[in-house]
């Protein structure tokens, strides 16, 4: 270039450059974040120019951890940085909207009825007028409404429903509180004060890994992503980190430069594979087979051929491997039975909760009772719930034995679903019990046999790695498609790394494996390989499961505010998978599970998932709403009319009615009149689309939209026993669907009422995640635009109107009955030593023991609003995960410092302003109030009997308030609510509290559970880690008889959206394929004559998708990928098959509940909200793909 074209500053008039400088200028920067279910919790700086949000850039002022760990900046991804598009886009909900037919009816009814509740009744109790608007849902025809008018309508609908059917027919769905805790709490606080139902999400989304409660008694607890940097061997399995954990992925790419090896297991060549040293294209859904073989090799080479001292010590101390299991003889061979209990031995039978106290044997073969079993958690005597190998009877140390090898053996039967039965010899001992001699072995000895490591024992063991028997490297080939030699190399590297690094093996897992029917088995197989290499409870180690932003850091005070537990306990909470399986009538299309999930005998066990769920409800294992086939308010009145005066008498009256069958659980007749939900609030959610597994069943039965595409057959008739069958299932069960939203998504389109919600740059809220250890703020850069309001304000308005209308309809406080299940982390988890069904006469119905707790609470509808905006008297008494602390002094102090309001002669902290709500939560949380952390540890140390409060001694002065987090992300402190530690700049890793301080896991043994001894697990041969393949598509009632291109339908998370959010945003649409697409392998596509970008139709009996094809050989043959989650609102065509508009990915799915996840009242198999219960699996799904035209 001629150098004269280089313009030095002075050499030319460059004043025009101001053009771009002006563009860059802005007036103000405000810190906020994105309230979306993505685990990001990224801090963003929102740039405002002349009152308009111009753009956002990531904050880069995260506190530095220990200097050996990379910093977090700049945290925030593609999707987040496009959010500002929504604020002023034509997709924005600017005003309230109502379905035209409904608003006409309402205005007409209001002319006829002075009272709004009467007006609502006149519409919904008349089938014709009701159908006039419910039958037009989703068909357009919205009209703008006025806030006042619409709030009145909503309030009237709730009061009518409560009075006529009971408050438990009013439900609300909002997921993932962590993403905007106060907005979540807005609706749930209203519902809980009202007596409505809050729906779970973590299990419904299938984000909950049931293996976590099974093995650890924990919902989910994972390493923050910075801790990946401490790992020296990382396997990604079903998790596409760069795609779905975008802001965290630098920790993965950077760990490689610290020498970590990275292995990616993924059926497609995805973004994560770019960072792999080895890519293992494991057949989707069969990852478990790979991990089973990994364990075979580890057990053979590190436990049988030689003993690695580090692994041995870990196994004895932190796992149930030394614990004793009874073997019962049947048909000449032994079968795995239950754990031997202290109650069975003369020596220890007198221990408190001896039934819930397990045994080991010492090296000389004597049975000993170590501390730390679940019994010690609930005993009156404190201080024995710890991991010490110390005998509970005589206090002597126990030198526990992992194995009985070298003595007597027994022939034990092992059953493998895909590989049949084998008989393998297992070392055994005989133990004298109160009931005679029993044969026992250790979990370790059973595990060795299960995995086929013979140690010279007889029976049907594989000869070597090349015999094709469970669970050898050769055996796994046929399921995974990975060569035995390659698998063996990885296994040896894994074991070697575990040994050399002192257990810094890590598995990053996600929805790719968690969404299969047998996800718990896949996970348990992988977890076993971590446990066997000492890789749980250490930094840089463990099962890093990232699916859903489940971690609400200030959990306890948030729960109190959100569930209104400062006023009323317990809460009316519902596990959503059960709820929708029943209420969207998917159960009617489901056959018995015996066909695809076969119990050994099936004796005393319902064989249809709906029947099993009904049993789970009546035995107090799972909640269900509505509770009964009558209103919970009316039942109290009836009890009183029958002479019951006290709460106990009301309860006794109801128990009698239930026993006689005069009153029934609503789940036993879910399609019966009045037994379904009536009013549905949706906020912060896409409940009818992205969150509606079995979307078309929802459209048909719940919504009543006329364009449902489902063609499945109702096969359950005659197969269900406990549920009443109605030949015609109801369609359009909901009287009213209300959606608060900032964008017109699919759910909004199908709702009756749309309320304009403030965006994430227009309100104040709290935000946290499991991916990092900061508490972040969402804050208003600009005021709510147009007529939008923050959710907190919207529900305040509704609450106020409900209270106003109640003056006439529910003028005095009334009593309500809550049927609450037996809860984990309460004595309810030791309620049912054996499964006994009162309905079958096997025991008496006893609330809180053999059936649900029946709690009587008071509803004060007139003061509902006052309660909503006031901190209630119970706020100072908090607990979470079984840990509690007192904070009445904090409450007293805040009453002096914060705004207050007075009513009924008392003064309360005023919650009108979201920022005050935030400060209340932060003030009561041990995570952000160091003094409370100290108190919580102090309480726990009494129970545990080990010093713990020292952990918090250095941070007692710490206080983090709202103002602080608007200035900078702040790091929370260690508390016993969580199992990880963050002292001294250390990254959070789960179970370090357990491993370093001897606190038990919240399981039956108190240790990590490799063996699940509940008899139902025995029935399905899932007591030990095992492998079961994908469900057989011939049994799924989805594609039978269809020919052509039939593919396994996978819906991994995508690059251009977070669930459905951002998928309709022009930025994302422009950078992607601009709408719904399905990815196919080019050879598969060629067979069906499909070319790239060609319109296609994807269908099965559940529904239809109309979209375009993308062809790439990175997609394995036999599969179709549709990245989760599109909207059906953009440019979607009509189906050839049905003539109706195509749906979304969930149009092709339906749910199948796994019965072993419904158990309750038994140690870690005890219910808690979003914690335990069946999950909404959706990967075992098949579809037909064909060209749309021609």
């Amino acid at each position, binding site marked *: 270039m001629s150098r004269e074209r280089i313009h030095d500053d002075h050499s030319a008039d460059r004043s025009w450059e101001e053009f771009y400088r002006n563009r860059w200028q802005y007036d103000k920067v405000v810190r906020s974040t994105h309230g979306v279910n993505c685990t990001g919790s990224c801090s963003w700086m929102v740039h405002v120019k002349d009152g308009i949000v111009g753009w956002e850039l990531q904050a880069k002022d995260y506190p530095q951890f220990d200097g050996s760990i990379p910093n977090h900046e*700049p945290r925030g991804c593609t999707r987040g940085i496009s959010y500002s598009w929504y604020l002023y886009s034509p997709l924005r909900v600017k005003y309230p909207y109502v379905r035209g037919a409904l608003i006409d009816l309402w205005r007409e009814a209001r002319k006829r009825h002075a009272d709004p509740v009467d007006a609502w009744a006149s519409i919904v109790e008349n089938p014709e007028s009701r159908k006039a608007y419910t039958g037009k849902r989703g068909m357009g025809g919205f009209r703008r409404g006025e806030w006042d008018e619409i709030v009145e309508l909503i309030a009237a609908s709730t009061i009518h429903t409560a009075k006529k059917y009971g408050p438990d027919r009013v439900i609300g769905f909002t997921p993932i509180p962590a993403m905007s805790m106060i907005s979540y709490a807005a609706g749930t606080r209203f519902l809980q004060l009202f007596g409505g139902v809050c729906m779970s999400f973590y299990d419904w989304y299938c984000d909950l890994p049931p293996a976590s409660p099974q093995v650890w008694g924990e919902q989910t607890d994972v390493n923050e992503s910075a801790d990946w940097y401490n790992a020296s061997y990382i396997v990604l399995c079903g998790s596409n980190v760069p795609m779905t954990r975008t802001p965290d992925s630098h920790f993965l790419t950077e760990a490689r430069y610290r020498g970590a090896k990275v292995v990616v297991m993924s059926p497609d*060549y995805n973004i994560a594979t770019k960072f792999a040293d080895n890519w293992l294209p494991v057949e989707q859904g069969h990852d478990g087979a790979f991990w089973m073989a990994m364990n075979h090799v580890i057990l053979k080479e590190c436990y049988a051929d030689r003993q690695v001292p580090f692994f041995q010590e870990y196994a004895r101390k932190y796992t149930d491997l030394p614990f004793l299991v009874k073997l019962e003889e049947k048909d000449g061979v032994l079968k795995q039975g239950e754990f031997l209990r202290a109650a069975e031995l003369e020596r220890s039978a007198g221990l408190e909760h001896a039934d819930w106290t397990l045994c080991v044997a010492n090296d000389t073969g004597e049975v000993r009772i170590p501390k730390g079993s679940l019994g010690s958690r609930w005993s009156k005597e404190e201080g024995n719930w710890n991991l010490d190998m110390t005998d509970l009877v005589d206090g002597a140390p126990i030198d526990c034995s992992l194995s009985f090898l070298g003595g007597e053996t027994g022939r034990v039967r092992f059953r493998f679903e895909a590989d049949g039965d084998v008989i393998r010899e297992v070392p055994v001992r005989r133990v004298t019990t109160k009931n005679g001699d029993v044969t026992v072995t250790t979990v370790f000895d059973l595990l060795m046999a299960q995995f086929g490591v013979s140690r010279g024992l007889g029976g049907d063991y594989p000869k070597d790695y090349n015999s094709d028997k469970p669970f050898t490297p050769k055996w796994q080939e046929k399921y995974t498609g990975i060569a035995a030699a390659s698998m063996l190399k990885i296994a040896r590297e894994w074991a070697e790394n575990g040994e050399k690094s002192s257990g810094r093996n890590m598995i990053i897992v996600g929805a790719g494996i968690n969404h299969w029917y047998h996800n718990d088995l896949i996970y348990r197989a992988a977890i076993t390989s971590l446990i066997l290499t000492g890789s749980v409870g250490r930094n840089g180690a463990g099962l890093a499961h990232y699916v859903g932003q489940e971690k609400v850091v200030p959990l306890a005070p948030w729960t109190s505010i959100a569930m209104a537990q400062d006023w009323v306990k317990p809460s009316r909470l519902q596990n959503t998978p059960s709820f929708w399986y029943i209420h969207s009538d998917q159960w009617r299309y489901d056959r018995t599970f015996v066909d695809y999930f076969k119990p050994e005998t099936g004796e005393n066990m319902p064989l249809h998932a709906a029947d099993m769920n009904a049993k789970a409800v009546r035995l107090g294992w799972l909640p269900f709403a509505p509770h009964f086939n009558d209103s919970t308010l009316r039942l109290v009145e009836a009890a009183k009319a029958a002479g019951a005066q006290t709460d106990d008498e009301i309860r006794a009256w109801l128990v009698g009615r239930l026993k006689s069958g005069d009153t029934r659980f609503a789940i036993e007749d879910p399609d019966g009149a009045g037994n379904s939900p009536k009013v549905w609030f949706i906020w912060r959610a896409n409940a009818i689309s992205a969150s509606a597994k079995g979307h078309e069943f929802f459209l048909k039965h719940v919504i009543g939209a006329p364009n449902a595409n489902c063609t499945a057959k109702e096969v359950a008739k005659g197969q269900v026993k406990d549920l009443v069958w109605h030949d015609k299932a109801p369609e359009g069960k909901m009287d009213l669907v209300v959606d608060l939203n900032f964008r017109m998504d699919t759910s909004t389109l199908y709702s009756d009422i749309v309320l304009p919600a403030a965006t994430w740059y227009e309100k104040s809220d709290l935000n946290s995640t499991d991916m990092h250890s900061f508490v972040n703020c969402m804050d208003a850069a600009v005021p709510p635009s147009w007529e939008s309001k923050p959710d907190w304000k919207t529900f305040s308005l509704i609450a106020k109107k409900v209270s106003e209308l109640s003056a006439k309809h529910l003028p005095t406080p009334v009593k309500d009955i809550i049927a609450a299940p037996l809860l984990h982390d309460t004595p309810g988890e030791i309620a049912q030593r054996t499964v006994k069904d009162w309905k079958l006469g096997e025991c008496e119905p006893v609330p809180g023991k053999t059936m649900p707790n029946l709690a009587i609470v008071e509803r004060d509808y007139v003061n509902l609003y006052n309660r909503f905006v006031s901190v209630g008297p119970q706020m100072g008494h908090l607990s979470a995960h079984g840990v509690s602390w007192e904070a009445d002094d904090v409450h007293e102090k805040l009453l002096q410092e914060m705004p207050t309001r007075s009513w009924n002669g008392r003064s309360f902290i005023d919650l009108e302003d979201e920022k005050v709500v935030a400060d209340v939560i932060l003030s009561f949380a041990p995570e952000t109030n160091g003094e409370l952390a100290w108190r919580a540890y102090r309480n726990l140390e009494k129970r545990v009997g080990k010093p713990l409060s020292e952990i918090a001694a250095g941070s007692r002065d710490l206080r983090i308030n709202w103002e602080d987090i608007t200035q900078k992300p702040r790091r929370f402190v260690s508390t016993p609510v969580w199992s990880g530690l963050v002292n001294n700049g250390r990254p959070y890793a789960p179970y370090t509290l357990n491993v370093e301080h001897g606190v038990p896991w919240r399981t039956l043994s108190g240790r990590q559970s490799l063996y699940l001894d509940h008899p139902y697990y025995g029935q399905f041969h899932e007591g030990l880690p095992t492998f079961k393949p994908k469900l057989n598509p011939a049994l799924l009632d989805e594609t039978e008889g269809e020919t052509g291109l039939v593919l396994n339908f996978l819906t991994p998370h995508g690059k251009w959206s977070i669930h459905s959010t951002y998928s309709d945003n022009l930025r994302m649409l422009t950078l992607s394929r601009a709408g719904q697409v399905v990815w196919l392998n080019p050879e598969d596509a060629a067979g069906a004559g499909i070319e790239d970008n060609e319109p296609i139709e994807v269908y099965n009996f559940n529904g239809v998708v109309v979209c375009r094809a993308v062809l790439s050989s990175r997609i394995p043959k036999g599969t179709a990928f549709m990245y989760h989650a599109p909207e059906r609102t953009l440019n979607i065509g009509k189906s050839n098959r049905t003539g109706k508009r195509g749906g979304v990915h969930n149009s092709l799915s339906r749910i199948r509940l796994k019965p072993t996840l419904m158990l309750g009242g038994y140690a870690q198999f005890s219910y808690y909200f979003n914690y335990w219960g069946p999950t909404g699996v959706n990967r075992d799904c098949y579809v037909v793909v064909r060209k749309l035209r021609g």
Partner: protein
Amino acid sequence: MDVRAQLVMVFNLDKCIGCHACSISCKNIWTDRKGAEYMWWNNVETKPGVGYPKKWEDQKVFKGGWVADGKNLRLRAMGKGGTLLSMFFQPNMPKLEDYYEPFDFDYGNLYGAKEGNDQPVAEVFSQISGEKMAEIKGGPNWDDDLSGSPLYAAEDINLDDRKIIEEYDTMFMQYLPRICNHCLNPACVASCPSRAIYKRGEDGVVLVDQNVCKGWRFCTSACPYKKVYFNWNSGKAEKCIFCFPRTETGQCNACAHSCVGRIRYVGVLLYDAEQVEQALLKPDDQLVEAHRAVILDPRDESIRDAARKNGVSEQWLEAAEKSPVYALVKEFGLALPLHPEFRTMPMAYYIPSLSPVLSTLGDTHELAEHGTFPALEKLRAPIGYLASLLAGGNREVVASVLAKLIALRGYMRGRNLNEPADEAILKGAGLDEAAAGRLYRLFTIGGHDERNIIPPQQREEQDPHTRKGASGFGILKKTGRGR
């Protein structure tokens, strides 16, 4: 010697996750305007792939950049005689379909649709014509993650053997983020008949003067990277401005700021402007070496003196010494120029990416024999492919870089596992412990302020007292609001 300072960006492709956050921060701030809808000053391409605009790398089609013609460089589009073909005809311009037709959706229909018999949708329309579009046939990132596509990946000109991307066991996929390279020998500048394009003396940023540009569009054709765009609304060319309002104040570019993969480094290089043209006459496979030769050692006092004489300030010299870019490009020789054979001497450099070990698929999928980390020759991404992209075809240059990355990882693994330090691993790849320490920091624990060392501009010579008073009133033009 004519020592000048240049702001340069380095991209570590070994860390790029292909997320496009960079593209959107740029779009939000700079090109969210009428006439600029289709412009992506920063874009990210999936490689192998055809990119944006489609097949931009193929100069047989687009005739961009320079060719070495004996002892001279000439613009490829210009005939031997040195005259432009025609002032009014641009045969080598990319067409709209080579970019894409910007589209939007009729979102309002979701609110306004009358009650009907099926669910309403938002249909698609063109942002240019406003007319409804029957279908969308392309976008700025149409082949995203499309490794293995016979339509796109297979058309990548850097690929010797199309077969490898069709096979499950050999295909590979990487990303290539791109901005304007702010070249030392920019073809856009040379091609502009209006002399509207210039390179700023103080930082090397190449700009199109929006007051001077007459919309000839020669720059669009001449740029071999297709990083100058024509704004159909204003009738002027626009391009990446290296976020000069940010860099002037010591902040990194918006794309670098928003790079959540932390792959970008921004810093100062000193170079000898007199040597640029001669360097570019070297054969293709010597161009990486030639690039490095033009870049000067900021610690050399004679060079610093020469720089000072050219008006480079002490602050800039200090920044040049600490420059992460100097370390990566010259000192450790890790970062390579994108298509140096286009001979514009681009000032954006790329560290090539590692990739997984090869595998074979017989009855079962089998990994190639390898150590803990795959050896260089076992990586899936062929060295020839990377050499075509980043080294004028010189495979040794690429191999040497990848060997350094592998050695760094191997060495650090030993330290991670508390094994005795094995410097031999480093030596074999031409590194030592000090180099490994610096690279490790730059790739990992070095934060924003180590990745980006950008000296603010000093403007005190430009009557700062007056400017301060007039700040914000410099150019009074109507904004877009209220019109």
